[in-house]
């Protein structure tokens, strides 16, 4: 009975209106090239940019590692650690991009779609840890470079004291991570929470029926 009433209201919608006009060919040409994902959900571009940037750093890392190895430089362990982190970061981001498979994501059944979206956002949040780690290495390099300009003695003392260098590196990485956690990450956490809540809500509703 209720459904009959709804159907009646449904049928009362105007056949043609400003809201529901037929779609024109010229409009279609523009629409079909549009990315259906927008805002925080659209991670493909961000992942691609990160992969390109980290790959460039990875190539530079090879050069640095080779130089440190050949000259038996004081920063060999640091170069090895940075190279390892860069390699894993590239792998992680490429894997995430391939896993997300944005071109087929919307053709999945709703629950699989939401599940995959949840995993992608969750792993994207995790990927900020790699960014913090990398920021630690490069900011430390920046500090060393600045010190070499200002105070040669301080730079010499820092570059020959591995223990302090690692401590500074950890301190910078953790600080950068905290900074990200209070600036960029919350919007992705809100999205993740919203996707989870929606998925659980719709599943609970379906089971209660």
């Amino acid at each position, binding site marked *: 009975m209720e*459904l009959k*009433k*709804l*159907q009646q*209201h*449904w049928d*009362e*919608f*105007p056949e043609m*209106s*400003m*809201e*529901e006009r*037929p*779609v024109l*060919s010229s409009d*279609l*040409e523009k*629409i*079909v*090239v*549009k*990315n*259906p*994902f*927008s*805002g925080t*959900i659209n991670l493909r571009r961000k992942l691609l940019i990160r992969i390109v940037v980290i790959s460039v750093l990875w190539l530079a890392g090879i050069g640095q590692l080779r130089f440190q190895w050949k000259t038996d430089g004081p920063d060999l362990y640091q170069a090895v650690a940075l190279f390892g982190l860069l390699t894993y970061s590239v792998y992680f981001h490429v894997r995430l991009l391939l*896993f997300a498979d944005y*071109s*087929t994501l*919307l*053709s*999945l*059944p*709703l*629950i*699989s*779609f*939401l*599940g995959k979206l949840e*995993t992608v956002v969750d*792993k994207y949040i995790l990927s900020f840890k790699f960014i913090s780690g990398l920021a630690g290495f490069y900011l430390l390099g920046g500090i060393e470079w600045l010190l070499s300009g200002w105070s040669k003695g301080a730079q010499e003392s820092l570059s020959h004291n591995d223990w302090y260098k690692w401590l500074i590196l950890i301190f910078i990485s953790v600080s950068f991570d905290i900074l990200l956690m209070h600036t960029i990450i919350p919007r992705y956490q*809100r*999205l993740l929470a*919203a*996707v989870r809540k*929606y998925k659980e*809500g*719709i*599943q609970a*509703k*379906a*089971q209660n*029926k």
Partner: protein
Amino acid sequence: MNNSSKKGGFDVDIRSLLKLQHKRVYSICRLFTHNYKEHQDLFINIIAAVSQNIQSRRQNSDKQTLILRACINMAALHSITMEPEPARERAIQFKSPDYQRSMTRFRESIGEASDYEKFRLFLEFEGMPTEELTHLTGLPLPGGVAGKKKEKESELPLQRKALFNFIPYLKEKLVWS
């Protein structure tokens, strides 16, 4: 004449299909939007999603299923992104008076229906069988079908179940599902 010829980089087959199916896309917009802008944005996003789904489809996938899945998934995404919006911005506001009237009446009659109910209504209005809901969403059907599936799962050999739970932490870290 070759129907699937490309014109301006866009498959003519897909264009004809989208033109034919635009009413179906508008139907889901009616259920999930509150104003003109939301309605137009959701419509555009669904059309873009349908086109993407069809262009990257596998050979055995059905176009109708891809269209309906794009509609449902984009509507869900719309609900997720619209959730933090304050209630005052969710008032029904459309440009054409007739459409505004029909929408107000329709919304009053469905009341505070959940998205699950809206998906069921969408399929009902589109004349799709109820069984399609599981195929399109992965959600259990209302009634006994879900129970049967659970029974089947419980028949899994214990050894296989133990294998699935093998080092859950490691599995969760290594296998993204």
